[in-house]
């Protein structure tokens, strides 16, 4: 009996040992190259505990559940930075601790969702458009969102498991803004999307590219970086900015209020702002970096890739995603109805 207790204590002892330096990161899936974190650990000795989510809503709910205590660095989209800021969930950033902040493109700073960037640091930005398998679908065959409604794509469509993206697409197809707060318009978008449902095979935001690579779907609403990554592994997978107007978004690094390893979080944050590091992140993950110095370092082919860096023409009718405030409840209601209802 005594021996059993001793054995137990022995096994459990790592629990009581002094913790080495860690930083807990919660990020979108497939949104950070492994080698970047490994380099960070090598340089600073700080271990990175990395876990992932696939939507802002999951991030928000998780932070609420654990009361901000558990993660040191998280990556919400702009409209959620707004909300979390107002909820007092974010730590005010001390810019003096972020010397590499200077490398960021001023054109992307000091926006209404976070004046002066008191709470957030831009990480990556991108667009949401249409990816397709050019072996099954001729280039030019799908140029608009509404093309996906065609019955020939029955059971072949992938949609992002993201409330704002999908309802935004519905709104755009009807000519409304993706940030529309009018309940009538949102309901119309919902009705329109219901017509699409027979074509939809799966909702996925975790790793949409897998469904393209495994040939489970041939066309879908995805983020440009996903299409880029898929295209690297299978040259048939292409991306197009829809005529109705692709959505524009930006993800930001923030430190939750209640984080335990704030110092380590600052170290990691500053590390990620290094031009060389930002360059690696951008080229590996396939999204555009807001880091001006990093942009100058980018590989030429990558820099010219319109999938990642769309032209003015590509963005003709595009809009930036912003917080819709109270209308969020309306969006949530119709999103739930869309997911629950069968066709």
């Amino acid at each position, binding site marked *: 009996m005594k021996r059993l207790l001793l054995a137990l204590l022995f096994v459990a002892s790592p*629990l009581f040992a002094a913790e080495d330096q860690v930083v807990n990161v919660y990020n979108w899936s497939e949104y950070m190259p492994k080698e970047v974190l490994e380099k960070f650990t090598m340089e600073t000795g700080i271990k990175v505990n990395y*876990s992932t989510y696939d939507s802002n809503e999951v991030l928000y709910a998780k932070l609420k559940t*654990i009361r901000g205590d*558990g993660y040191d660095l998280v990556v919400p989209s702009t409209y959620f930075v707004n909300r979390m800021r107002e909820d007092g969930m974010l730590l005010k950033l001390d810019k003096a601790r972020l010397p590499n902040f200077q490398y960021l493109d001023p054109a992307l700073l000091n926006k209404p969702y976070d004046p002066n960037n008191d709470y957030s640091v831009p990480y990556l930005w991108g667009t949401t458009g249409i990816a397709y398998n050019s072996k099954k679908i001729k280039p030019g065959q799908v140029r608009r969102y509404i093309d996906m409604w065609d019955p020939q794509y029955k059971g072949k469509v992938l949609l992002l498991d993201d409330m704002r993206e999908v309802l935004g697409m519905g709104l755009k197809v009807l000519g409304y803004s993706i940030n529309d707060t009018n309940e009538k318009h949102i309901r119309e978008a919902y009705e329109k999307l219901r017509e699409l449902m027979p074509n939809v095979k799966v909702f996925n935001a975790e790793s949409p590219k897998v469904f393209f690579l495994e040939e489970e779907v041939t066309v879908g609403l995805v983020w440009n970086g996903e299409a880029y990554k898929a295209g690297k592994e299978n040259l048939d997978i292409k991306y197009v900015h829809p005529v109705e107007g692709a959505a524009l978004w930006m993800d930001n690094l923030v430190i939750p209020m209640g984080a335990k390893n704030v110092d380590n979080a600052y170290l990691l944050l500053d590390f990620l702002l290094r031009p060389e590091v930002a360059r690696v992140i951008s080229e590996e993950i396939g999204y555009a970096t807001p880091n001006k110095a990093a942009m100058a370092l980018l590989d030429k082919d990558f820099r010219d890739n319109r999938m990642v860096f769309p032209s003015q023409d590509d963005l003709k009718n595009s809009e930036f995603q912003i917080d819709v405030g109270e209308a969020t409840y309306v969006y949530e209601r119709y999103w739930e109805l869309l997911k629950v209802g069968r066709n």
Partner: protein
Amino acid sequence: MKRLGRIGYLILIYLFLYCPIAVLIVFSFNDSQYSLSWKGATLNWYRVLLADGQLLRVALNSLMVALCSATLATAIGTVAAVTLFRYRFFGRRLLYALIYVLIMSPEIVMGISLLMLFVAIRLTLGFWTLLLSHTTFCIPFVVVTVLSRLSGFDRNLVDAAQDLGASEVQVFRRIVLPLLMPAVLAGWLLSFTLSLDDVIISFFVTGPGFEVLPLRIFSLVRLGVKPEINALCTLMFGLTLVFITLSQVLQKEKR
């Protein structure tokens, strides 16, 4: 002819049960990143797996929780079983019912109920919440295992001991426990395996700093079919085989 049909049916079902896993194991040795066509044998994926530091840490976490919760559950469960069997006390029937309800309870309901409890009492989600949760869902299994052995118990032994002046504690330690040992160990092994494999309850009650293996596998699997995952699953399957063999050996000794 009928005999052939019978054997054939048995084989068919066995094939059904084992084919998918066999495919998994075979392709963990396949020297190809993507396709399912055989490109030669390799141990590469196992090497990649064992080099993954975070994965090993997560596996260790799972092991820690399983060991601690199995032991705690066995301790509490054995005491509970003996208590239910020997003593008449207030609320005995209710306790019996509660235990059976726990076994039958859908795991997802247990998961969210414990989450609510921990959030309400502001307990940080992590190792301790996992320990408490895993212990809780293992206890009923231990109780049932021990109770089934107790039902074949010879009361005369206890009576004789008590006639000779032994106290309750002594009776428990010297007579009851040794005779129950095989069931207790079986209960421990059962709890250990249940804890190691648990996905649903862990999903709700674990916290950011403490990940467990099944959840890690779950998030890996969602990113698609990859040979490293095949290797991981093969290793886990091998571990299961080891445990089953162990429990079979224990059962043999019971006789």
